[in-house]
């Protein structure tokens, strides 16, 4: 039991933290920056690059600071996704090069709204065309991912030429102005798979370019590429009607526990966001042909879903809002990891609410810190069966009143999926790829309770490990299991996190005071509802009266609802 003074102190601490978080509104990474910006293009033709004898264009639109005297500037490469490649009137086609009088559909110019913002902060941002890849990528077993990687590398080689000797159409403009040791990539959809493949492709070539930040946007993950040793963030639109299974969450899940990895991982779940609106050329009205709202096109033609559909009370985002989410989170991500502006980390950790440039507050951010003392102390990874009884610190794990209490989604003998009878696209963490059918998904603790005395306790060793003063939060990822009737539809879950120290002092923090992640997954049609395990972070400062130098247990007490069921993983202390 926590005394009233302690409760008051905890509430005061919470208020202070909220105030501090609110103060970060002043730092909006998506606001226009100080540099005047210039737009340019380069185009070496439809057959300027060949991969396995397949014609590919070498074409891009570039935004860069008008005044390059402060260079060299970091380079950011954008790669669009799969889309028809040619059009004639309102008809569209998949071929390359386009048969005259058909003309190319310029998917690569679809992100200029974001290129311009990034360039205004001193980045050279090039968005490359990949129609040649789109026309024939599925002829290759890896579905064109290595082709995409090779195309990015070819553009980086071109930028190396611009930076060293100069070349047309720019002449000497960029000589000495491009920092190819600080390169970021953003790929949308199949382009997201492309930038993931490219990170490892560049590494396989001996890392001729310094890829420091990778941002897959609504990506496919066909090869289960592991992105260790690079900071990355995945953006997942909840109402994605194209890559509707949000398979890109695998990038995060697969890269969490690579030993010694000194880079951070994030994902950003955009509630109400769809797939095609991120590219202005793909969105309705953006081009004479081949435009659509993917949610309505592929998942819900009548727009009837209460959350993603078109009804008056739906939560679907406008195109402008969708752009806002990229402007806020991609710009913030790049400015952190290429620009060294750590002041934006609270946004990418979920400690600060979405900045105004995001144009929506319905965003959930998940974060997994690098493998370093002071950044991450893993209490229970829940990776394998023995973690049900013994945690990563070698200490007992004790369930009480939990039924079921098992792991799902991970390696054998775990069941492949966690929600029996639900389509896999409603279970992103375990959705399969036809190319990697044997690859399992995220190992998750699956449990429920039937009265409010249930709890789950992880002990901490009675040694130096118990000193968690060097960490900022205790955190985990969780989702309400909508497949379990013990959760009340449309009612969020709530529960308490309790820390206890060596002499028995305890303090409790209510999840609902810190996070809205345990929402009841919304939607009823097609790919929704779906379970996405979002990070819940509880600042250690809230555990007033507990000696943080001697923490002996982390207890999660399911004391706020009589019944419920959750999926949970990654119990850690974090920075």
């Amino acid at each position, binding site marked *: 039991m926590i005394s009233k003074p302690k409760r008051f102190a905890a509430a005061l601490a919470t208020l202070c933290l909220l105030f501090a978080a609110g103060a970060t509104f002043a730092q909006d990474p998506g606001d226009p920056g100080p540099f005047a910006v210039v737009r340019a293009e380069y185009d070496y033709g439809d057959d300027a690059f060949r991969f396995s004898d397949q014609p590919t264009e070498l074409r891009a639109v570039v935004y860069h600071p008008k005044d390059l005297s402060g260079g060299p500037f970091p380079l950011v490469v954008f790669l669009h996704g799969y889309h028809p490649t040619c059009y004639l009137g*309102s008809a*569209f*086609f998949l071929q390359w090069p386009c048969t005259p009088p058909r003309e190319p559909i310029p998917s690569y110019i679809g992100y200029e709204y974001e290129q311009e913002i990034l360039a205004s902060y001193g980045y050279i941002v090039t968005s490359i065309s990949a129609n040649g890849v789109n*026309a024939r990528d599925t002829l290759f077993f890896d*579905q064109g991912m290595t082709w995409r990687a090779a195309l990015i590398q070819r553009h980086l080689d071109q930028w190396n030429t611009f930076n060293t000797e100069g070349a047309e159409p720019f002449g000497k403009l960029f000589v000495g102005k491009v920092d190819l040791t600080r390169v970021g990539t953003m790929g949308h959809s199949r382009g997201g798979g492309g930038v993931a493949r490219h990170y490892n492709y560049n590494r396989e070539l001996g890392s001729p370019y310094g890829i420091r930040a990778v941002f897959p946007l609504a990506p496919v993950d066909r090869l289960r590429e592991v992105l260790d040793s690079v900071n990355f963030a995945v953006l997942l639109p909840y109402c994605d009607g194209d890559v509707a*299974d949000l398979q890109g969450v695998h990038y995060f899940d697969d890269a969490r526990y690579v030993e010694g990895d000194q880079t951070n991982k994030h994902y950003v779940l955009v509630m109400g966001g769809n797939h095609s609106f991120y590219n202005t050329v793909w969105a309705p009205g953006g081009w004479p042909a081949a435009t*659509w709202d993917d949610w309505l*096109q592929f998942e819900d033609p009548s727009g009837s879903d209460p959350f993603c559909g078109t009804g008056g009370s739906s939560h679907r985002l406008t195109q402008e809002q969708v752009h806002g989410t990229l402007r806020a989170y991609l710009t913030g991500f790049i400015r952190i990891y290429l620009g060294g502006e750590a002041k934006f980390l609270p946004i990418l950790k979920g400690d600060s609410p979405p900045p105004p440039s995001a144009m929506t507050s319905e965003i959930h951010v998940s974060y997994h810190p690098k493998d370093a003392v002071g950044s991450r102390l893993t209490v229970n990874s829940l990776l394998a069966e023995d973690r049900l009884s013994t945690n990563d610190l070698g200490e007992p794990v004790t369930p009480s009143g939990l039924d079921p209490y098992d792991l799902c989604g991970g390696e054998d003998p775990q069941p492949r999926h966690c929600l029996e009878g639900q*389509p896999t696209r409603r279970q992103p963490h375990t959705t399969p790829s036809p*190319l990697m059918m044997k690859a399992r998904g995220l190992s998750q603790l699956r449990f429920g309770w039937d009265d409010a005395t249930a709890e789950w306790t992880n002990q901490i060793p009675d040694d130096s490990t118990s000193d968690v003063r060097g960490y900022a939060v205790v955190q985990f990822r969780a989702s309400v299991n909508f497949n379990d009737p013990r959760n009340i539809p449309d009612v969020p879950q709530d529960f308490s996190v309790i820390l206890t120290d060596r002499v028995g002092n305890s303090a409790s923090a209510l999840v609902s005071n810190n996070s809205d992640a345990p929402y009841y997954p919304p939607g009823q049609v097609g790919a929704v509802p779906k379970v996405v395990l979002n990070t819940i972070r509880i600042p250690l400062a809230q555990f007033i009266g507990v000696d943080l130098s001697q923490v002996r247990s982390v207890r999660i007490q399911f004391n706020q609802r009589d019944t419920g069921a959750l999926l949970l993983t990654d119990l850690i202390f974090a920075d």
Partner: protein
Amino acid sequence: MNGKSKTTFRWSSPAVAALLITLSGSAAMAQAQKNSIVALQTASSGSNIEIVITSDEAFLRSEIPVLRIGKQEIIISGPAEDGSVYTRVFYLSPEQFRSAKSGDRVTFQYGSGEGERQRDFGTLDKSKLTHSSRRGRP
């Protein structure tokens, strides 16, 4: 749906039309969806077998196009030579074709997920195999 291609499909000649595989079982549903297997042929180069399918619903999604023949999943595919987004050519290895049986159900879906919406293309008739003059996959 935006602008459907009006271009004549290359395989719509009488000779190829004779290769149409008879739909069975859910023929009514298949007709309603206007899905059909247009050709079953060996590639002019290489030893792959091509199955050409058409649908009145364009093949547009970013997820992997997967043709299921019985229990097999065929994931190597390409567009029609005329660029029609309503046609898809799937490539079977000789082993995959040997494993397939006449009468196997042919369906299309995106990805390998369970519970995905499938398009029914009827059943396979291996006796309809013919030789193509079309350029094969790279």
